[in-house]
Structures are given as C-alpha cells and as structure tokens.
C-alpha cells in the first residue's frame, strides 16, 4: 500500500475530436476527488491523459512532485511504468482469463513471481468478497461482482494513484446503491490519490471529499459537495442540484438578469453575480398576489412534473423559473399545461454570490 502523502498535480491540454480540454487538476494528500460533468465534457479523456494513454497537446503531470509527463521538457513516463490503477467504465476484465488471473495480471506484469502471485491475488479477492469466484470467467459474474474484480485488479499491484471512470454507471439502480457504499469503504481503505469521474451528483457527493465540475473541456467549479450545491456556478450544476440559477449584474438590492428583467435580492450589492432561488421558495397564485413579496412575476406553465409528494412547475414568463409546490396546492390552483399563473418569492430567499 502506498504511503500517506501522495499528491497529484496535473495541467493538461488535450484535443479529443472537436473538443479541446484544458484542465488543471490538483489532488492533495488523503483526498478523494470527483470529476463531475455532463456526458461529452471530456472527463474520460482527461482521466486517460493522466494515465498516459492519450497524447497531451501540452501540459504537465506530476505525482508527489515526480514528473510523469512534461511536454516542455519532452519527458514521458509510459503508462506501464506509472504507478496507476485504473478502473474502466465497463471494467474491461480480460474475458479469456479467470477472475483470479485477471487480478494477478498486474502482479505478474510488475514482476511478482511464483506462489506469491496467487497468494496476493487471492487475498484481494477475499477483500472484495469474491474468493469463491476465483476460477470463474468474468462473463459468469454479475455487474456488481465485475465491478469488485475490476477494483481488486486495479489495486492489487499497490498503485499510488487510483483512477475510476464512472465506476458505478454500468450497474442497475438496485445494485448501484449497495455498490456505492461498498466502493466508499474500499476508497477509504486506499491511501493514495483517488480521482473518480462521474456524471451522477449523488455518487460524487457520497464518494468524494471535493468536486471538480467540468463542462466542454473546461473547469467550471471546485469545492466540497456542500459548497458546490449551495453555490452552483453553471446551469448544469444548478440543474443537477435542482435550483433556479440566474447570472446578472447586481445593483443596490436587485440583480438585473437577461432580457432586462430584475430579481430583487437582499444581498445584492454590485458587480457580476449569480442569483440562486430554490424552487420551494417560489409560490404560485391564480391571481396577482397582495402583500410583501418583492418579486411578483406573471407567466404560463409549460411543464408540470410530479415527484412523489412534490410537483415541479416550469413557468415561462420574462425569465423562465421553476416552482415547487405540493400536489394539493397544484390541484387547488386548477393549473394545467399552458395555463396562466402568477408567482412570487421573497428577496431574502435569493442567494447572491459573485460570479
């Protein structure tokens, strides 16, 4: 097992078809970092670049200060000499080898010989609870079992870095929850650099200490899961978290958003800001509401979706916004698709932070 104090610094520019990836990744000692982004953001390519499987346009990758790759000096440590464990999205277990030989593959490649190979591979299978499947072929395993074999195979040669590409995406929903807990415990048992790629915010939040959000090859936001969810910095993150996000210019108590509309916000002072409003804070009315709310908008309901005990209503007015009400309230409003509706929210329910 790698000693404590392994860190990764990478500054990577890669071309992947039309996509240009330009990312800086720092993983400090003891951290689990999740790279979160939509499909096609370049996450997998970035991970492959860190492993040396993709040619860098320019950049530098260093592990514990030891340079693995630097396009300026021309240094390139080939993949097979990097101390990296890689769990691929669909696991890529060698179909012609038994489970045990899959786990032993990295040990043999790294020069371990004799009965030691079997012993260590078997010990890893024991750890992931698959000792009884040692002689099965991967095709005979369930999705969850394959995931555990892939993890054992990647960890068996004691790498300093563990890269996981969508480790749970290939699993069905019921297995995924169990495997998430399982994976979390294995990740905490590993003391090297842990970097995982996912498009699932829940997975990212459960497994990682810190999130790096990337979109279209570029860095969007970094922070703990709590920071990222409370202060989203892109429509993608806002969507994932399920909040309304506006970007505009603050001016004495209000934020001027696109199309000239303004959102009254208690904390707004000046400069480019994000304004975030939770859908629960948005109230719907059949007629223009009276009273204190500073923000009163009028629009047309364009989408109504029920989520258990809540209903989400998308309202298209000057600025589109989503409101969340109870199904009972929705029934009382007699609101159907395309129906006209008023909405209101308090200025104090608008979170404002610099863009």
């Amino acid at each position, binding site marked *: 097992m790698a000693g404590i104090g392994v860190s990764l610094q990478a500054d990577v520019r890669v071309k992947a078809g039309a996509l240009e990836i330009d990312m800086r990744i720092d993983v400090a000692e003891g951290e689990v970092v999740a790279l979160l982004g939509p499909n096609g953001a370049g996450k997998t390519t970035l991970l492959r670049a860190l492993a040396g499987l993709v040619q860098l346009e320019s950049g530098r990758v260093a592990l514990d200060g030891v340079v693995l790759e630097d396009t300026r000096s021309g240094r390139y440590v080939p993949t097979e000499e990097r101390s990296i464990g890689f769990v691929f999205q669909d696991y*890529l277990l060698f179909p012609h*080898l038994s489970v045990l030989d899959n786990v032993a593959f990295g040990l043999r*490649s790294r020069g371990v010989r004799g009965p030691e190979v079997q012993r260590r591979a078997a010990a890893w299978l024991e750890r992931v609870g698959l000792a009884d499947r040692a002689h099965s072929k991967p095709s005979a395993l369930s999705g969850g079992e394959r995931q555990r074999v892939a993890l054992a195979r990647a960890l068996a040669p004691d790498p300093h870095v563990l890269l996981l590409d969508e480790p749970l995406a290939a699993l069905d929903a019921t297995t995924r929850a169990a495997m998430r807990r399982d994976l979390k415990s294995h990740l905490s048992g590993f003391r090297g650099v842990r970097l995982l790629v996912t498009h699932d915010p829940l997975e990212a939040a459960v497994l990682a200490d810190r999130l790096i959000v990337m979109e279209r090859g570029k860095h969007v936001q970094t922070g703990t899961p709590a920071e990222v969810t409370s202060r989203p910095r892109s429509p993608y993150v806002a969507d994932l978290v399920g909040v309304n996000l506006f970007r505009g210019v603050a001016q004495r108590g209000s934020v001027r958003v696109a199309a000239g509309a303004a959102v009254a916000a208690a904390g707004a002072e000046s400069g480019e800001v994000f304004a975030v409003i939770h859908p629960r804070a948005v109230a719907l009315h059949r007629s223009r509401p009276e009273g204190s709310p500073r923000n009163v908008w009028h629009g047309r309901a364009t989408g109504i979706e029920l989520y258990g005990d809540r209903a989400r209503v998308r309202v298209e007015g000057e600025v589109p916004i989503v409101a969340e009400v109870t199904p009972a309230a929705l029934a009382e409003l007699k609101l159907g698709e395309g129906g006209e509706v008023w909405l209101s929210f308090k200025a104090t329910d608008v979170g404002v932070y610099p863009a």
Partner: protein
Amino acid sequence: MRRERAPLAIGILAAAGAAFFILPLIGLVVRTPWADAARAVTSADTLEALRLSLVASLTATGVALVLGVPLAWVYARIEFPGRSVLRALTTLPMVLPPVVGGIALLLAFGRRGLLGSWLESSFGISLPFTTAGVVFAETFVAMPFLVLTVEAGLRSMDRRYEDAARTLGAKRWTIFTRVTLPLIAPSLFAGAVLCWARALGEFGATITFAGNFPGVTQTMPLAVYLLLGTNPEGSYILSLILLVVSLVVLVGLRHRWLGSA
C-alpha cells in the same frame, strides 16, 4: 422466440445457391466407382499424396501464422506511408492466377531467381522440386487469407483492453501475447482455417514452382489433375478423399471452436 421465416424469393435464391455447390459434389459421389475406391484409398501413391498434402498445408499454415500475424498487426496498428499499397501487394496472390504466382516465385526463389541464386551459391539451397518449395507456393497463395482475416479481427477488437493491460504494467510484447492474441482468437482461428483450406487445394503455384513428383512435391490436387487424363475414375476417388478429409476437419474444428454447427 419465434422462428424466423425466409421471404419466398430469398428462400428460392438461397436454395439455388446451395444447389450450385451441392450438385457437383453429388456428381462426384455418383460417378465414383466405389468398387475401386477401397483399393485407391489404401494405395501407396494415394496415401503418399495425402500425407504430403497434409504435411505441406499444415506447415504452410504454421509459416503463415508466424509471418502473417505480425504483418496483420502492422497493417492494423502502424500508420506509415505506402501502407495501403503494401497491403494491396501482399494480398495480390488472392486474385493473381496461381500459375503466375508460381512463375513469380521462380523469379524470386528459383535457381536463377533474385534471392534463389544467392541461396544456391551461398548455402546450396534450391527450393524448386522440393517439399519446401511446395510449402513456399502454398504459403504464398494462402497467407493473404490469414492476414486479411486477422487484420479485420485486430481492427474490430476493443483496444481499450490493451489500455487496461498497460495500466496494469504490461509491456508491449506481454500485451500482444497475453491480451491481443487471446482476444482475437476467433479471427486467428478462422484465418488459419481459411489459409489451411486454400493451401490444401493449391494447384497452380505448386506445380509451377515446385513441380510434380510423387512423395516429394505431388500433392493431392496435382495427383487428381494428372490422373484426370488417363484414369478419370481414379481422380474422382482422390477428389472425394480430399473432400472428405477437408470436410471432417472443417466441420470438426468449427464445432469445437465456435461451438455451433
């Protein structure tokens, strides 16, 4: 699952296509004088030709595997100028009349050939009229089938398995032998069988380059051809023997390797 039924037109054309192959075989079976067949099967000449055919075609397949798999790998993986031209040149024997192939082999490896004259003067090695010459001719004609099949297999395999092996510390040779080759085993097998079948039936290049002498260079197809003139019934019997041997091998191997009929 419901059984799929063929549209009438496709069924008729498929039946005609199958009949096109089956009828000549029936003709061979019907016209074979079975009374003489037993004697012909066990005659020393027949056994000698059959033995030579099997030895030469299997050796040619072995040579084709040793040289052809690396060639296919280079074609599939390495980009270099002139690759498509080189590929076309090395697959030319598939369309070249085999006799022309035999002459080309003579011009290269014959006693006065480009390389052959050097082989003869330096090592006293002369390929024409030898069993090695038969293997040369068969390899020349049959190897392209293996190369093309294996190249297709290499191109269609999921290369990320090789990436996975690299992240596990495997060097290129280890990846090739322990990951790539096992993954393309079906293509490798199909290519080898095609190559072997082509080598077994080889006639034109063999008789041109290696000549024809019983026990040395006379393979079954040569024996069949030469017998056709004087003893057609004898040649039918030899053809049937060749056919049965090929059929047994092809059906047997397919069953064993692909697990289906």
